[in-house]
C-alpha cells in the first residue's frame, strides 16, 4: 500500500511540475509569432561610396560556386586593396533552407546567394539596390537582364518596381546533344519541334536513349514550359504568370497541349525508365558517358560537360513549334542580394558592380560557373573554346536576349509551386496518373491559393 501511495504522490508532484513547466512554456509562447511591425525600411540609408577605409565583406555562396567567388574576390581585392572579401559556402539546398533565418539573424553576410526571392522582399530583408543602379550606371544597360530581380515593395509582383538583386551571370535552359549520336541517326540540330520529335523517334529506333530528362531535377517542368511557349507562340502569358501579375493564368489550351505532348513523349519511351527518380547529378553523368542523344538542362552543366569531352557535345535552345517561331529558354540571374542588415552595403555593391563589368571576372563566371554574363551592351566579347558546349550557351543567350525570348522559370513563380505542384504534377502526368487538363487546372489553382496565402 505504502509504495503505491508514494508512487501516486510522486506522480502528483511530477504532474504538478510538468504542468507548471507547460504553463510557463505556454506563457513564454503565448504571444503571436512574427516580427514586430516596426521593421527596418527597405531602402538603403547607407551611402554608396566605397571609401578608402579598410573593410572586410562576407559573401555567402552555394558550395559549388565557392571556387568561382574566391577567384572573383582575389580579382576584386587586387583592384580595391582596402577591401577584403571573405567567401563562405554551404550546400545550395541547405543555404536556401537557411536563408530567411540567416537574413533575420545577428551575423548577416554582406552578400548572399538566393534561389528566388520567396518572401524576403515582403519581409523587408533585402536592400533596395536602386541607389547603386543609379551610381554605377546599371540603368543604362539592357534592362531585360534586371527584369526577374525587380519586385514591388510588397513582394507580390516581379518584373516591376525596385531592383533587389543582380548576379555575375545568368542561368539558361536548353538541350545538350551528343554530336556523334546525332550523326549516327543521320540528323542535324533540330530547328523545329517536329524535327526534335523526329530525331527522338530515330534514336529510339536505333536503341539510343533519346532524351535524358528528370522529374526531381525539375527538367520535366522546364520542358512543359518550353512547350507552352511554343504552342502559345508568345512569352507573355507565362511571363505574366511567373511575375505574379494580377489575373495571370496558365490554365490555357497551350499549356494543356504542352502537357499532352510531354505525356505522349513519355508513352513513346523517349524518357529514361527512372525519369521520376533520376537525380540531377546522375542525369549529367549519364549524358557525359555518351549513351544518350539529348539532355535537357541548363548552362550550369556546361563546364562539366566540356570537361567530360570538349567538342563532343553541343547545345541548342528548345526549338519553336514552326520554323521562325519562338526559340524560348528560361533564364534567371545567379541571384546575389545585399541583406538589409549588411554591415558594408556600399562595399558589397561595389563588388557586385565589379563582377558584372570586369572583363576577367566575367570570363571567370563563364568558365568556372557556366553563367553567361549580362552587363553593359558594349561589353567586350568573351572567349570560348570552339565547338564547346559553353560556346553554344553563350551564342544562344545572345540570340535569345536580342529576340526577347527569355522567360523566368515557372518553378520560381512562388516559393512552393515547384515542390508542391510542378515537380509532383509533371511526374504524375507522365506516369499517366494526371490528365493534361487536370495538371493545368491544378497548377493554376495551387498557384492562386499560394499567392493568396502569402
Amino acid at each position, binding site marked *: 500500500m505504502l509504495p503505491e501511495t508514494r508512487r501516486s504522490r510522486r506522480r502528483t*508532484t511530477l504532474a504538478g511540475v510538468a504542468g507548471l513547466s507547460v504553463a510557463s512554456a505556454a506563457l513564454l509562447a503565448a504571444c503571436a*509569432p512574427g516580427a514586430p511591425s516596426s521593421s527596418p525600411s527597405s531602402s538603403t540609408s547607407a551611402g554608396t561610396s566605397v571609401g578608402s577605409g579598410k573593410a572586410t565583406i562576407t559573401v555567402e555562396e552555394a558550395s559549388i560556386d565557392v571556387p568561382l567567388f574566391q577567384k572573383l574576390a582575389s580579382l576584386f581585392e587586387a583592384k580595391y586593396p582596402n577591401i577584403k572579401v571573405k567567401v563562405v559556402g554551404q550546400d545550395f539546398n541547405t543555404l536556401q533552407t537557411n536563408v530567411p533565418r540567416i537574413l533575420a539573424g545577428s551575423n548577416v553576410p554582406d552578400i548572399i546567394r538566393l534561389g528566388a526571392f520567396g518572401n524576403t522582399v515582403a519581409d523587408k530583408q533585402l536592400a533596395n539596390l536602386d541607389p547603386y543602379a543609379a551610381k554605377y550606371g546599371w540603368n543604362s544597360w539592357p534592362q531585360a537582364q534586371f527584369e526577374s530581380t525587380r519586385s514591388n515593395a510588397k513582394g507580390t509582383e516581379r518584373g516591376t518596381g525596385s531592383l533587389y538583386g543582380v548576379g555575375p551571370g545568368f542561368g539558361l535552359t536548353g538541350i545538350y546533344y551528343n554530336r556523334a549520336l546525332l550523326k549516327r541517326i543521320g540528323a542535324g540540330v533540330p530547328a523545329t519541334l517536329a524535327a526534335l520529335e523526329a530525331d527522338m523517334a530515330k534514336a529510339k529506333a536505333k536503341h539510343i536513349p533519346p532524351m535524358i530528362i528528370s522529374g526531381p531535377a525539375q527538367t520535366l517542368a522546364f520542358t512543359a514550359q518550353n512547350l507552352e511557349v511554343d504552342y502559345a507562340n508568345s512569352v507573355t502569358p507565362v511571363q505574366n504568370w511567373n511575375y505574379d501579375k494580377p489575373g495571370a493564368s496558365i490554365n490555357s489550351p497551350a499549356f494543356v497541349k504542352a502537357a499532352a505532348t510531354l505525356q505522349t513523349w513519355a508513352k513513346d519511351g523517349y524518357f529514361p525508365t527512372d525519369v521520376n527518380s533520376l537525380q540531377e547529378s546522375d542525369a549529367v553523368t549519364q549524358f557525359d558517358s555518351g549513351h544518350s542523344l539529348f539532355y535537357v538542362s541548363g548552362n550550369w552543366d556546361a563546364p562539366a560537360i566540356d570537361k567530360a569531352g570538349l567538342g563532343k557535345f553541343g547545345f541548342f535552345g528548345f526549338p519553336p513549334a514552326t520554323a521562325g517561331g519562338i526559340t524560348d529558354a528560361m533564364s534567371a540571374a545567379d541571384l546575389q542580394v545585399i541583406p538589409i542588415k549588411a554591415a558594408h552595403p556600399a562595399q558589397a555593391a561595389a563588388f557586385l558592380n565589379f563582377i558584372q563589368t570586369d572583363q576577367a571576372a566575367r570570363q571567370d563566371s563563364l568558365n568556372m560557373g557556366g553563367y553567361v554574363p549580362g552587363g553593359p551592351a558594349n561589353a567586350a566579347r568573351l572567349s570560348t573554346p570552339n565547338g564547346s558546349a559553353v560556346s553554344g550557351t553563350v551564342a544562344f543567350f545572345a540570340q535569345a536576349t536580342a529576340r526577347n525570348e527569355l522567360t523566368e522559370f515557372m518553378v520560381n513563380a512562388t516559393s512552393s509551386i515547384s515542390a508542391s505542384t510542378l515537380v509532383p504534377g509533371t511526374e504524375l502526368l507522365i*506516369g499517366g*496518373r494526371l490528365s493534361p487538363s487536370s495538371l493545368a487546372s491544378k497548377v493554376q489553382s495551387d498557384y492562386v491559393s499560394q499567392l493568396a496565402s502569402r
Partner: protein
Amino acid sequence: LTSSSTRAPTAAPAAEPALRARRRQPRRRAASWLTLLWALPALTVYGVFVLYPLVETVVYSFYNWDGIGAASPAGLSNYQRVFTQSALYSSILNSFVLIVFFTVIPVLLGLVSAVLMREIRGRGTGGLIRTLLFLPQVIPLAGAAIAWTWMYSPNGVVNQALRAVGLGSDQHAWLGDFSTALPAVGIIGTWVLTGFCTVLLLVGLAKIDQSLFEAARIDGAGRWAEFRAITLPGLRRELVVCTTVTIISALASFDVVYIATQGGPGYSTMVPGLEIYQLTFIKQQVGQASALAVVLVALVLAIIVPIQRLGRER
C-alpha cells in the same frame, strides 16, 4: 502541528498512526521540494528544449506565418487543411504503410532470427550473425539511403540480380515507379530495423529462465507450444520496446525518404516528416507545418500509449 506533536505522548494508542503520519508531513514536503531542486537543472533543459518548442508549435499552428514576417490568426484552418488536403493527409496514410515495413516485418523477422540464434549454440557463428544483423544500425542512415538508391537504379544491383536469375521482365526503376517506390523505401527501413529488433529480442530471450524451457520439454511441449507459452510472454517488454521505437521511426521518418525520393514520384512517398520540413523551410508555411506536426504528435501518442499499456498488463 507543534501542539499536536507535544500532545502525542498522552494521546490514545489508536490515534498513534494518524499522528505519526501528520508528524511526517513537513519532512516529506521538504523532501519533495528537495527532489524538485535536484530535478531542476534537468527540468529546465527539458522545459526549454522540449516543452517550450512543443507549446510554441501548438501556438504557431493557429497562425498563418512565413517564419519571419508578421503572423495573422488562422483559427482552425491549418488543421482543417491537414484533414482535407489530399497532399497532407495522404502523407499520414503513407506513414501507416511504412509501419508494415518498419515495424511488422522487422519485429517478426527479429523474433524468428532471435529464436533461431538462441538455438545456434556455436558462439562464433552466433556472434557473427548478430554483428551482421546489427551492422545497419551503425551506418549513418543518409549514407545508407544513397547506397540503396544506387542499388534500386535501373542498372543497380537489384535489377542485375533479377536479370541474373532470369527475371529480367520484372525489372523496375524501383524508386521512380508509382507502385514500387513506397515499398522500396520501406525495405530500407526493414533492413535498418531488423537487426535492432533481433538484438533487443535476443537480450530478452537470455533473461528467460532456462529451466522453464527444460520443464516444458519434459512435459512434452513442442517448439510451437514452447514459443507461445514461454518465449512470447517472456519477451513482452522487449516486444513493446521494439514496436514503440519502430512505429515512431515509421511515423516520424524523414532521412531515408528525403535522400531516396524527396516524396516522389508524385506524392507517392511523401511522409509527414518530409512534408513538415518542406512546409517550413521551402514553402515558408510555418503555421501549416506546425498543425501537421501537432497532428503527428497526437497520432504517435494515440498509437504508442495503448501499446505501452499492453506492455504493463500481466
